[in-house]
């Protein structure tokens, strides 16, 4: 009962994001659409505005935004595997690496294809690798799957290091940029005097992919994110999305209801790998060189943290989680040596105070509320107060909403 009495402060925090969401879904459709467009436009001009506080001192803000957008793309893809289908994947970086290396091999190492031509090939290769990994391993459940995928990620990385054909530890360079189409110059804002001034000496060419200016790469990544998010919404709301959810909650029950769970899990793996491949190819073309160092297990773990931090199963949660995981360490580069420590502490605090993630899926929130109400009725207290205790009183009671991704 101590949970219910200590509850009110936690409630207000929950309501900050939850209330915002409720207000959003209460708006008419056209207003929602306009708001989305406005947010998207804001994201596009963000690197030009370089607003104080948000902008990163010391490192190129456009470059940081590009990194963040790659993480967002990866998190959205991994969210399909972990959040929707409930398959704990610790080797996602493997697909990311395969995407990047396919581009590298085709454009620089063994052929000189243009980037645009190598992209679809890279995506097909990653998707096939997803199926090839999934076909034998998806019979294994829960935490065993986690460790098999972890093994896969490491096998990919070690093979990259050991294979001369793939450039070994030196990696591959130079990877070409996407084709440019220089149309006009866009000026940046200058905040150095305290008031925003348009600075015509510092401009970005629309659209020229160069080594010096990462902003066009960021625009490209943002466009791809929007496309992937739209596709993600269509899939999640379709029969496939429901099949994933059923599989995640109870695989045997789903199978009995006629859901070919294996096939849908494989599909989740393939689609997840596909999105990871997009992110990898983008990363490769922006970096112009890749080596196995960029594809360590630690990166896999960061990707997974992004999804879980944001709230697995919710695409916007994944986006927010990725922004947190990728942006915060860059913002606080001034504290260079302390940032990993602080990141670790942040993960621990988040796990304790926000166990469902920053933005849990609507259904989880709803199920929790109902549960808390039942619980409160049983002990005879106001249901309103009990809503907050919604960590789920015991693991067993929380079972229906518990993202049973690692259920053995």
């Amino acid at each position, binding site marked *: 009962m101590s*949970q219910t009495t200590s509850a009110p402060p936690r409630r207000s925090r929950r309501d900050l994001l939850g209330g915002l969401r409720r207000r959003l879904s209460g708006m008419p459709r056209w207003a929602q659409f306009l708001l989305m467009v406005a947010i998207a436009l804001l994201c596009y001009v963000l690197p030009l505005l370089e607003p104080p506080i948000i902008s990163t001192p010391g490192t190129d803000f456009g470059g940081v935004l590009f990194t963040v957008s790659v993480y967002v793309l990866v998190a959205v893809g991994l969210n399909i595997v*972990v959040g929707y289908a409930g398959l*704990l994947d610790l080797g996602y970086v493997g697909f990311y690496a395969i995407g990047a290396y396919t581009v590298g091999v085709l454009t620089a190492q063994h052929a000189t294809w243009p980037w645009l031509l190598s992209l679809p090939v890279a995506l097909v290769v990653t998707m096939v690798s997803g199926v090839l990994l999934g076909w*034998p*391993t998806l*019979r*294994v*459940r829960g*935490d*065993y799957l*986690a*460790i*098999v995928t*972890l*093994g*896969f990620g*490491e*096998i990919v990385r*070690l*093979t990259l*290091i*050991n294979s001369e054909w793939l450039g070994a530890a030196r990696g591959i360079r130079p990877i070409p940029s996407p084709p440019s189409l220089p149309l006009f110059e866009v000026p940046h804002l200058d905040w150095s005097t305290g008031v925003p001034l348009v600075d015509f000496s510092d401009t970005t060419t629309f659209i020229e992919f160069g080594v010096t200016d990462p902003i066009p790469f960021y625009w490209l990544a943002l466009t791809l994110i929007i496309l992937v998010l739209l596709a993600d919404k269509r899939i999640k709301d379709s029969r496939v999305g429901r099949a994933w959810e059923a599989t995640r909650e109870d695989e045997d029950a789903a199978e009995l209801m006629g859901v070919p769970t294996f096939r849908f899990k494989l599909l989740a793996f393939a689609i997840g790998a596909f999105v990871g491949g997009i992110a990898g190819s983008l990363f490769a073309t922006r970096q112009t060189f890749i080596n196995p160092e960029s594809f360590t*297990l630690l990166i896999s*773990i960061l990707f*997974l*943290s992004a999804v*879980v*931090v944001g709230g*697995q199963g919710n695409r916007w949660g994944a986006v927010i989680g990725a922004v947190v995981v990728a942006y915060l360490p860059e913002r606080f580069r001034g504290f260079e*040596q*302390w940032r*990993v*420590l602080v*990141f*670790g*502490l*942040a*993960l*621990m605090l*988040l*796990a*304790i105070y926000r*166990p*469902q*993630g920053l933005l849990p899926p609507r259904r989880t929130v709803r199920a929790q509320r109902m549960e808390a109400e039942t619980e409160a009725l049983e002990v005879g207290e106001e249901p309103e107060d009990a809503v907050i205790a919604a*960590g*789920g*009183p*015991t*693991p*067993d*009671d*929380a079972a229906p909403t*518990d*993202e*049973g*991704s*690692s259920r*053995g």
Partner: protein
Amino acid sequence: MAFQYVLDQFVSLFVGGLVFGSVYALIALGYTMVYGVLQLINFAHSEVFMFGTFATVWALWLVGADATTAGVALVASLAVAMLIAMITSGGVALLLERVAYRPLLNRGAPRLIALISAIGASFVLSELMGLRGALASALGVDDVLGRYVARSRENLGLPTDRTFTVQFEVLGYGVTNKDIIIVLAALLMMIAADQFIRRTRLGRGIRAVAQDPESASLMGVNSTRVIQLTFLIGGLLAGAAATLYMLQVGLTRYNAGFLLGVKAFTAAVLGGIGNLRGALVGGLVLGVAESLGSGLFGSEWRHVVAFVLLVVILLFRPTGLLGESLGKARA
């Protein structure tokens, strides 16, 4: 492929594999016990081990052992070092349970979030070790601590002499006293842990909680205590493994736990996670396979061999070699 080389060097590779395998197995026990009781991948267990390696070196400095120490003095100082390493690792493991897991368990958080907490704790622990110099100077005690906090991001070596005497030869390979000590010590420790779980009252408590936490608590088992005990035993064994590892490898670093942790967890899964004897089998199989594999394909493929083996075994035995849970172990 170097079949001839493997045939020639078979005993050497095999013994080397056994030595590494016993270290893996000792660490794997910590993973497997926590998993058996909580169904949780204790990702930070590798850092518990890492603290043990540092404790070993520092303890040797404290007792004044150096490259000239030999004979009884060397054995005694190593024994003290192992004891201190076990206490340190056990302490870190208890702290970990208190700070990173218990708050989550009380709130009934979903299982994946506990993994995130563990990952966070793992970052924090390894960075604390890597930043010990900076921390000490922030507190103004870096002069007092001296070499204990100097060059905190660099490798730290075992101060004692690491040439070992050959005890007997098997098919042309000299088995050293170090090999014997490591394998025997690991085996002894594992038998002790196994018997503790199977025969004692506390061990019965652990098995009961692993089988069914709710019924166990209804029967009067204090599950918080049991979880603490599980972490403590895992920590003690990791500390012992740390000293043995330092004997074998001789170097440690603030991030040395990571690879060992991954390997040990692989060993635990290989044997069947949640199964004590599985951890032993898994560790030894992994160690030997990776050693023979590195002989066959070249040492750079060593880790690949380990992971491919894992994937292949899980395909044919999806719950590991011995695939039996801690709760189902017979008394």
